[in-house]
């Protein structure tokens, strides 16, 4: 069983749950940016929930399947069609041998997840099939898909019931405005209290540099820094720190101007101050933020972050329960 890539789409990569344990060497976790959607896609077709799927950004690929199989598309609304016939999202889709899957441009959300029964069967690299393009690691030859690629598919463990669906309330919400909860900290003491209040009160706009490494946000007021003598080795800009590790989800603000929220392909460290970190429960949402979407940061406590984490885990449990074979 294989899939021929006729057109690669805007940016399609193989992703799974990601890899752990190499961040200290500059290799980030990678993996699907919206884990709730990618896991649901896998569960719909009867795969292990952390199996390898295709993550399709904004405009999906055109793919031809060698054999009859079952697929599911979750996340962004990207209008899948089989041989020109429109198909539902968040449901099991039967595909015949030789049929071709196409997508439209994302109508809501930014990333669709395509799971195929049996999973995308590229070799594991450092314990994961996820693509880390900067390091040419994992996925298909360490890079996004290209026309002419052939994707191997694993053996399906079972045939999924074709009436299986993910109900509305368990889908990732796809809105034009987003609230990202963050825990303040790291270097927020470098910013004046008034300026920090302004930062948290504003609506930012997702810029064009919004990818798996990080999301750059525009349109807000530049930060005002507390005066200081630059520490040795940091650099003269008030936003410079002695190069340190960046938490996944951290919000760095180079020169105090445009915040960047780091995601699953994050650069693992560098010399810019960070004002806080988006909580783990809200990382999935970032993957569904389109360019030009509005974003507000909401300051929460760690206790609130942990509550939200439990809510996300409960939501995932409901998806598992509902889609159990």
């Amino acid at each position, binding site marked *: 069983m294989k899939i021929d890539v006729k057109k690669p789409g805007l940016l399609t990569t193989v992703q799974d749950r990601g890899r*752990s*344990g190499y*961040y*200290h*060497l*500059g*290799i980030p976790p990678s993996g699907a940016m919206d884990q709730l959607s990618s896991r649901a896609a896998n569960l719909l077709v009867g795969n292990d929930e952390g199996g390898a799927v295709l993550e399709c950004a904004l405009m999906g690929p055109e793919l031809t399947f060698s054999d009859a199989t079952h697929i599911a598309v979750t996340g962004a609304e990207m209008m899948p069609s089989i041989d020109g016939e429109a198909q539902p999202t968040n449901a099991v889709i039967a595909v015949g041998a030789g049929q071709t899957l196409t997508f439209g441009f994302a109508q809501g959300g930014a990333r669709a997840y395509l799971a195929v029964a049996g999973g995308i069967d590229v070799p594991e*690299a*450092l314990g994961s099939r996820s693509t*880390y393009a*900067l*390091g*040419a*690691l994992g996925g298909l030859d*360490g890079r996004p898909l290209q026309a002419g690629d052939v994707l191997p598919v694993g053996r399906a463990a079972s045939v999924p019931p074709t009436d299986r669906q993910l109900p509305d309330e368990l889908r990732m919400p796809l809105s034009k405005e987003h609230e990202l909860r*963050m*825990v303040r*900290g*790291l270097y927020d003491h470098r910013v004046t209290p008034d300026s920090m209040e302004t930062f948290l009160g504003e609506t930012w706009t997702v810029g064009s540099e919004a990818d798996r490494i990080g999301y750059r946000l525009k349109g807000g007021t530049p930060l005002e820094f507390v005066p200081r003598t630059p*520490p*040795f*080795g*940091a*650099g*003269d800009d008030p936003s*410079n*720190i*002695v*190069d*340190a*590790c960046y*938490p*996944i*989800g*951290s919000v760095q603000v180079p020169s105090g101007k445009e915040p960047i929220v780091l995601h699953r392909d994050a*650069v*693992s*460290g*560098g*010399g810019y101050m*960070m004002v*806080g*970190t*988006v*909580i*783990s429960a809200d990382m999935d949402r970032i993957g569904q933020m389109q360019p030009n979407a509005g974003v507000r940061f909401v300051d929460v406590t*760690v206790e609130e*972050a*942990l509550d939200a*984490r439990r809510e996300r*885990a409960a939501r995932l449990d409901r998806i598992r329960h509902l889609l159990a074979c």
Partner: protein
Amino acid sequence: MTTTTSTRYTLGGDEHLFVELSESMSLDAFFRGLLITNELSARSLAGVTEICPANASFQVRFDPDVLDVRRLQAVLEEIESRIGDRESTLDTRIVEIPVYYQDPWTHETLMRFRERHQDPSSTDIEYAARINGYADVDSFIEAHSGTPWFVSMVGFVAGLPFMYQMVERDKQIQVPKYLTPRTDTPKQTVGYGGSFSCIYSVRGAGGYQMFGVTPVPIYDPEHKSDHLSEFAIFFKPGDIVTYRPIDRAEYDEILAAVERNDYTLRTAPVTFSLAEFEADPAGYPARMLEALDED
């Protein structure tokens, strides 16, 4: 070693504990970070998923469903309090990296990005030499390659080492980063920013000043070179590096050997003592280099 009270614990959301040992760079802060993170790693605390030492800070990623952050902090504080009495020695290795300074490839790249530079009328290395008070580029290269460096952090992208030079602070080279980062840097460029030298492991964006290039790969997910056959990344924090200036002929020779899979990187085991270095910051690094000749 003196214990300082400057350690600052701060949260990176619900999954990261970020620990700043010193606001400014120092070997003492680097060593404390390395000793603390090595000890944390040895304890295999359930729930710890990533331990990332950096130049003067470190970060621990954890699963809050398994490990309470207050417990993690208490463990780290306890480790740090013991580190205070421990002699700062490190069993590590010294590695010789050949560098072709002022090579044509970084030169071509830096010329393309002159409008992003502090001094568009000179090259990166001419600028760095001048602002650090060196009479000419040759004497600057002598200073850059005369004393070994610590790998004080690995990261940014896969396997990129940040290095801090083993000299007294008043002799340390400092240069700003580019005004705006470049969108291109040749693979294996030897760069400089703040008080850190680095080797770019892959081609890509970068903001450090470019001084030269090494023909030796330091990252390869395909494991082609001998020194990368077991793992894609060569460097780890605590490694000691010495740069050896080479000319174009030797660069071409080494590159050809690398491509034939016939190049052996010179390395030797070595023990570093912070106390001995601090007692004799000029003589001790020179003695460390002798390990390469003994091997």
